[in-house]
């Protein structure tokens, strides 16, 4: 009996070891698989003179661009193992200041450069466009909102759809949690930063989509790329939220993601050139699309 117990314990222990062993092996295998894949893609896609590139690229700037920068630097470093990309999220203005001061290679900004910033030699390179769609539930008859009205809805000045030519239905103001990039962009573009009164703060794009779709009178905002037919996408200032309108620069709720350099890209060192080449390559475009952004023309 006792001998049986002991063997059972040992067997259990061995099994545990075996299981964990299997688990870790599996993950490394997967890792190898993905890096192998992307590396393979890389060689077919663009320049081969990559392997000997080494050094550090430093970026600083917009917190909104965190997702893009993280994804981009990750896949970039996977392709160029010798290169280290460091990104600091200090805010658009601070990033451009660091660029002007020469302490970083690239300044990230989630807006167009101001005149005094270009005057100091910084050049604007738009790498992606961020678009936000305003959505309402299917039964809502309001198809167009001016940006002033939208701001008033979100600050709680307008509380009923009838004031906007819709049904007599209370407006349920939905938004994202503090720290969300979409919320940050939306509030910044409407100039209502930190003065919004939300009825619900949801922690994912999917949750906003689902709640808006199922609540009469609800309004919410999501990245343009996730809008589906369970909700209405409202036009803003008479402009429909489409990729074309954003590329044409007509849609209000969009903003450029800029990676500014001091002087033109052609004047930069090889590392920075490789970085921008990568962004413009098919792989780079995949990354931009994967984080829900629009590729500029």
């Amino acid at each position, binding site marked *: 009996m006792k001998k049986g117990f002991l063997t059972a314990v040992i067997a259990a222990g061995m099994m545990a070891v075996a299981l964990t062993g299997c688990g870790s092996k599996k993950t490394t295998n997967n890792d190898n698989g993905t890096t192998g894949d992307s590396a393979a893609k890389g060689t077919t896609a663009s320049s081969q003179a990559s392997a000997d590139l080494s050094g550090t690229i430093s970026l600083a700037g917009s917190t909104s661009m965190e997702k893009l920068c993280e994804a981009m630097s990750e896949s970039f470093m996977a392709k160029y193992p010798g290169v280290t990309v460091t990104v600091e999220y200090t805010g658009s203005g601070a990033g451009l200041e660091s660029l002007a001061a020469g302490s970083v290679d690239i300044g990230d900004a989630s807006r167009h450069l101001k005149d005094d910033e270009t005057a100091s030699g910084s050049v604007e390179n738009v790498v992606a466009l961020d678009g936000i769609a305003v959505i309402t539930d299917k039964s809502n008859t309001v198809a167009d909102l001016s940006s002033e009205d939208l701001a008033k809805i979100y600050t709680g000045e307008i509380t009923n759809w009838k004031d906007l030519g819709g049904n007599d239905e209370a407006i349920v103001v939905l938004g994202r949690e503090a720290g969300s990039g979409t919320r940050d962009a939306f509030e910044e573009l409407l100039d209502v930063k930190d003065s919004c009164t939300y*009825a619900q703060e949801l922690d994912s794009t999917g949750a906003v989509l689902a709640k808006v779709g199922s609540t009469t009178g609800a309004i919410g905002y999501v990245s343009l790329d996730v809008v589906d037919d369970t909700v209405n996408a409202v036009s803003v200032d008479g402009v429909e939220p489409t990729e074309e309108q954003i590329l044409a620069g007509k849609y209000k709720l969009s903003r450029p993601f800029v990676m500014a350099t001091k002087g033109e890209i052609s004047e930069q060192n090889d590392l920075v050139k490789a970085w921008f080449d990568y962004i413009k390559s098919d792989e780079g475009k995949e990354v931009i699309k994967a984080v829900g952004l629009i590729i500029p023309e």
Partner: protein
Amino acid sequence: MKKKAIIEKTARIIFLVCAVIAIFAVCSITVYMFIKGAPALKKVGVSDLLFSNKWQPTAKDPSYGILYIILSSIVATAVSVLIGVPIGLLTAVFLSEMAGKKVGNIVGSTVELLAAIPSVIYGLIGMMVLNPFMYKLEKSIFAGDSSHQFTGGSNLMSAIIVLAIMILPTVISISTSSLKAVNGSLRSASLALGATKIQTIFKVVIPSAKSGILTGVVLGIGRALGEAMAINMVAGGAVNLPLPFNSVRTLTTQIVSEMGYSSGLHRQVLFTVGLVLYIFIMIVNYLLLKARRKGCMDE
């Protein structure tokens, strides 16, 4: 002989190691929470953090007041316990004192099933059934009231109802077993003295099962305080004063919803929120310990 001794010794060590793992886990979690949670408390200031109601972590001039969040947690827990405990206790009385074997079995296994349902299911049902119902109620109560912000039914009430149901199994199962453990001779004596069954239950059986019932209540409080998933789905998640039809955020959902994209001091404050929650849970557990000791002393 020797072999037996070795087996005995190995078994002892295995048991000891298992016991140490639990202790180690608790100690390291405690230390970790204090290390991670304390810095923000110092940076923001205790009163600005705990006693201010302005939660604007991403503003230019950020403020990290979690007073409303703490209050929401307390109110949601307290009210759900006030609703859940009487229902749970009476169910337990029914199970232990009145129900026949067949009915008792049905109710008993239903309660067990209720305990086994994952909290995300409670949240889902709350979101799909309770929230629309609450929205209708909200619309009829606040019709024409322009000062009220309509929440679409995701509010404190929904959270309380979901929590009250979620703590039922805990309260019921622990109360039932402690009621069943009451000595049968006490019941017989009470009945022999001419007390009715109801009198016996409320004057004799429940008082003698007091400490067990209290344990159930305290565990229920812990469950309600610590629930995150279901609440996140039904409570709305805006930081507001905990009024019945306001969208609220509790300590748990605060962490769940903002951990993803937070950074810097904002993130540190979320750890402090975790610390506050942890301290609340420690207080609840201390009360539990006290209730049990008192129960022992009474006997």
